[in-house]
Structure formats: structure tokens, C-alpha cells
């Protein structure tokens, strides 16, 4: 089975801050990591490969610095890595990103595509489903479990109050929840291999036959960010003091009921 996992390199959230003047992300000195849900997808892909054979290709769209995220995926055990990078792709929203990744996937081929549920910097959860639409293949989002049965997958999909067990024929796409699999570490030898392998770079010219330039990049994005800003806490909150544990519980419960939270 040829599995392709799409990953995003994101700033480590614990340390993300917005510049108070420009309201843009401060990236200086903020470490970059592989988005957690995507890493879960990598782990799921590696486990499927261990079970049924095949290969795992990791794809990342981003600037040249995203190379290190791909090396990390290789060091975890992926077979091949593809960096989708080009100035034409800059400023893409989720639709444009899915358009570009769709063209990439058609070019490299796949039986199964795995993406993370959503990225911690944008939180849209749109790119995975949009890639499936671009490719015209079935998709199962919010996957918490995957089992291969011949040329099909049985996917356990998480809902708010229930699970769905869905059988889906490959080729298909799933989006991974962090519950799907605990990602392994890189291995020492894996890192050595990762830097002996080539990261294939696909730019606009490599994909242009299958891409409408009007649908990519900043200009081709139907959505644009008008403004981002840090949320201000509206009030300082209510401080209850001098209460016993029981009284404190009662007081908090009363407040929650009063506000119709519970």
C-alpha cells in the first residue's frame, strides 16, 4: 500500500505570541515542530506499513526551512519525503493549499492519504477534507482507529457522543486525531538515514500542468485574514475567598448553573 502523509510545520504553541503592534505571529526564536495530529498520522502510516507492507511518503508544503520537519519524518521511518515549495504558493489559504497538495498527490500517486485533523496554528480542520474533494476520493475525518482489510480500511470515527465504524475502499483519505496513535521517537540510525536521503522538492513548474494559477497563492485564495489580535480578558473575574471546600464547590456550582453552563 502506498501511503502518503501530509504534514505541516507549525510553531511550538506553548510559546506562540503575537506582535502587539502588527498582530502577526512572532516567529523569531520560536521553535518549529511537526503539527501533533500530523505526527499521529505518520505513526498510523508506519504501523499500517509494518502490518501490510508498502511505503510511506511524507509531504509538506512550506518554505525551505520545512526541510527539517521532513527529515524528522524520515528519521521516524518514512521511506520518501517531498517538499512542496515555491513563491507562487505563498499566502495560500486552505482551499489553495488543498489545490496544490491535490496536484502533488496526483503526481506522486497514492492508495491512502493521511492528514492530521487540524493544525495548531490555524485550527481550521479544512485542508484534509478539501484535499479529498480535490482528488474526488472518499474521506473519513476524525479517525481514532484504523484497520486494514484487504483493499479497504475500517475506520473508527469519533463523534461528540458516539463512534462510527466505517468501511472505506482505497484510494481514500483519513484525517487523524491525536488518539489514533502515540507517535514514536526518531531513532538514532533513522536520523543518519534521514540525512543520507534526498528530500524531493516540487515547485510550481513541476505541478503547473495540473494547476490553475488562478486558484493558488494569496491571489487565488477565496479567504483572506483581515485582522488577527490577542484576546483581551474582559474582567478580572470573581475571587471567592475564605470558603471551606464544600462551600467553594457549592458556590462554583451555583455560578455555573446561573450562567446555564451546566
Amino acid at each position: 500500500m502506498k501511503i502518503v502523509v501530509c504534514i505541516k510545520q507549525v510553531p511550538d504553541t506553548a510559546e506562540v505570541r503575537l506582535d502587539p503592534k502588527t498582530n502577526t505571529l512572532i516567529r523569531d526564536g520560536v521553535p518549529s515542530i511537526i503539527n501533533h495530529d500530523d505526527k499521529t498520522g505518520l505513526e498510523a502510516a508506519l504501523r499500517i506499513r509494518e502490518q501490510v507492507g508498502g511505503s510511506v511518503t511524507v509531504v509538506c508544503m512550506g518554505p525551505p526551512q520545512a526541510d527539517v520537519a521532513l527529515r524528522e519524518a524520515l528519521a521516524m521511518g518514512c521511506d520518501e519525503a517531498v517538499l512542496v515549495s515555491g513563491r507562487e504558493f505563498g499566502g495560500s489559504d486552505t482551499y489553495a493549499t488543498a489545490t496544490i497538495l491535490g496536484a502533488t498527490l496526483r503526481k506522486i500517486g497514492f492508495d491512502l492519504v493521511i492528514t492530521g485533523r487540524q493544525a495548531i496554528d490555524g485550527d481550521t480542520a479544512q485542508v484534509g477534507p478539501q484535499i479529498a474533494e480535490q482528488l474526488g476520493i472518499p474521506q473519513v475525518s476524525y479517525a481514532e482507529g484504523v484497520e486494514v482489510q484487504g483493499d479497504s480500511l475500517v475506520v473508527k470515527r469519533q463523534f461528540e457522543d458516539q463512534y462510527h465504524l466505517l468501511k472505506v475502499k482505497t484510494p481514500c483519505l483519513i484525517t487523524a486525531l491525536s488518539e489514533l496513535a502515540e507517535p514514536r521517537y526518531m531513532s538514532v540510525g533513522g536520523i543518519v538515514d534521514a540525512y543520507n536521503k534526498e528530500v524531493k522538492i516540487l515547485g510550481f513548474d513541476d505541478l503547473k500542468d495540473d494547476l490553475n494559477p488562478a486558484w493558488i497563492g494569496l491571489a487565488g485564495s477565496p479567504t483572506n485574514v483581515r485582522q488577527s489580535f490577542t484576546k483581551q480578558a474582559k474582567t478580572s473575574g470573581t475571587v471567592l475567598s475564605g470558603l471551606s471546600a464544600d462551600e467553594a464547590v457549592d458556590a462554583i456550582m451555583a455560578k455555573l448553573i446561573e450562567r446555564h453552563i451546566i
Partner: protein
Amino acid sequence: MDFKLSKAHLLQQELYRRFAENEIRPLAREMDETEQYNMELLAKMQKYGFFGIPYSREYGGAGADYLSYALCMEEISKQDASSGITISVHTSLCCSCINDFGTEEQKRKYLTPLINGSKIGCYGLTEPNAGSDAAGQQTVAVRDGDDYIITGSKVFTTNSGFADTFVMFALTDRALGTKSMTAFIVERDMPGLTVSADIPRMGIRAASNCVVTYDHVRVPAANVLGKEGQGFKIAMKALDGGRIGIAAQSVGIAQGALNEAIKYVKERKQFGRPIAAFQNTQFKLAEMQTKIDAARLMTWRAAVAKDNHENYSVYAAMAKLTASEVANEVTRGCVQLLGGYGFTREYPVERMMRDAKITEIYEGTSEVMKIVISGSMKLK
């Protein structure tokens, strides 16, 4: 000249750091208090290749280099020096002897399982009456047909509580002394080999460290490493490389303690301010970080020289001498910065201070390092 780590080395460092923070940090205190290494943790480190870092793929190693191994030692020892020494004795003492002096057959039989993560090794040189005076060995190996019969005892053998493979040294002719010292590979289950309970110690208490007694242990002549009489050279060469590991361990202990102190001084308030706001605190931390950086650069110099097949023995001795002293000074300073809390077991700095002491003693004391260094200075 470039003092930056390559991208591949940075990723190695990232792996060791993440692993140590997530997997070792939560266990370090308990392992110290119970004086017991966590064998599940050991198995995890084996699985990810931590026990074969600088060794060739051909024999099952990770195929990385000595600098990567030094980065591992630092990151692991930041959280737990016992984990550091467990990897170090296996890697730079036991495995290096077999890697550098073993025959093809010995490498296939003994090195491969050690570096592919299936078995653990130890190294027996020190005896109750032969420490810095390694030439004063008493353990003997008497030839008997195709075998040697080994009798004697080795003390402070790190990893021996659970090791499978023992690289050890014995004299084939006591009258000839060191000239007859010979290196052997001994298997744990060879009759006559017994391992004592762990020796109670001040620091690195989670590591295994026992007395190993050889009572007429019959070892095939095929298990001699190198040639008969080459043992002293083999032992000393292994220790040269081992010192890079101990230097890196020392840097890790020091940086680990300093990181704890930095966290603490930002939170701890006295006289109405976080103690980090006092210049005395800032200067103290600045001095300590500078010393750690100097020790780290010396360690990297020795590791890179070894990777480049240059003569690194003096660099390794200088790195170990400096780094072990820095580790002791810094951990003591960090306990002081944490005050009464630093003295409690709630905070890891007291453990780090206890762990640091041994770095000035094992794999050659500071005094022995000075013999090695001055010996290279053409003073006589």
C-alpha cells in the same frame, strides 16, 4: 573553523533531549531513591538505538559518530546521570574494545547483539587493590588447552548487575605484570562468574555497580581480544574514548542543574522580588553558564578529533578534567541558589550534586588526567 552543530547533529540532539525530558525525567528521582534502574526504560533506549550510536551499520549499530554520542550523553545526563553512565560504560568501554580489537567472528558474535540493542555490556578493569594503579592487577588467567582459567575479582563494575557481556582484564603471568595483561570477553552465564549485590553509593545510585568475582572461570582462547599481553593497551585506549563520554556526562549534569536553578530563581521571591532580579544571582548564573560552555566546547573538540581519527587522548583528558570540576562546582552552586529547598529531595539539584562527584573519580581521576596531560607537555 565552525563551532555550530550540523543539521543532522541538531536533530540528534533534539531526539535525545525530547526522549530524556519525556521518558527519563519522570523516573529519575524514583530510580535514585530505590537504587534500581528501570529496565523498561533501558529497553526503550535500546530500541531507539542509544546503545550503538557510534558503531557501524555493518554490525548492527546506528552508524552515527562520536559527537552524536557526546550529545546523547549530555542530554540524557541533564535529566539523570545514572542513565548516562549506563549508556557510556556499555558504549565507550565495553563495545569499543570489541569494535577496535575484536576479530570478525568476535564482532559478529558479541558486538552485534550489544550495539543492536539486544544485550548490555560492562567492563572490568578496577580491582580492590588496583584503581589508579591499574598495573597492580591481581586477577590471573592461566592457559589450559584451548581455554584460559580466570581467577580474581573486579570491583565497581558498572552495569554488571544486568550485563550479558563482560570485557575484562587478567594477567597471564603475574611475574610479567602488565606486560602479560590480556583482555577477555566473558559471558555472564559462564560457570564461576558471580556478581554481588549493588555497592551502596553516594551518587549515580540508579546505575548498577557491583563486585564481579571470577572463580576458575573457563573462557575459550577464542575469546581473547587482540593478542595475549595487549590488554593494558586495549584498556587504556577504551578509557581515552570513555573520558569523552564522562566529560559530556559532566556537562549534562551541570547544565541540567543550571536549568533547574534558572527555573527556580525566576519563581522564588525574597525581599519582595524574584531572586533572579538580584545581580548576585545573575552574575552567579553567568559564571556558571560560561564555565559549562567552555567545558562543552572542550568535549566537542575531543569528540570531533576522535571522529576525524586524530590523536584525541590529551583533548579527552583535558575535557574530562575541566568538565568534571565544572559539574561539581556548578551543582554545588545550584544547591546554594535553591537554598533550603535545594537541600531537599523535592528538587533534583541535590541528586545532581551527589551524582557529580564521581565524574572526578571514575574512568581516571582528576589526578590521573593531570598525569596524561602533563605527560604530553614534554616536561621531562
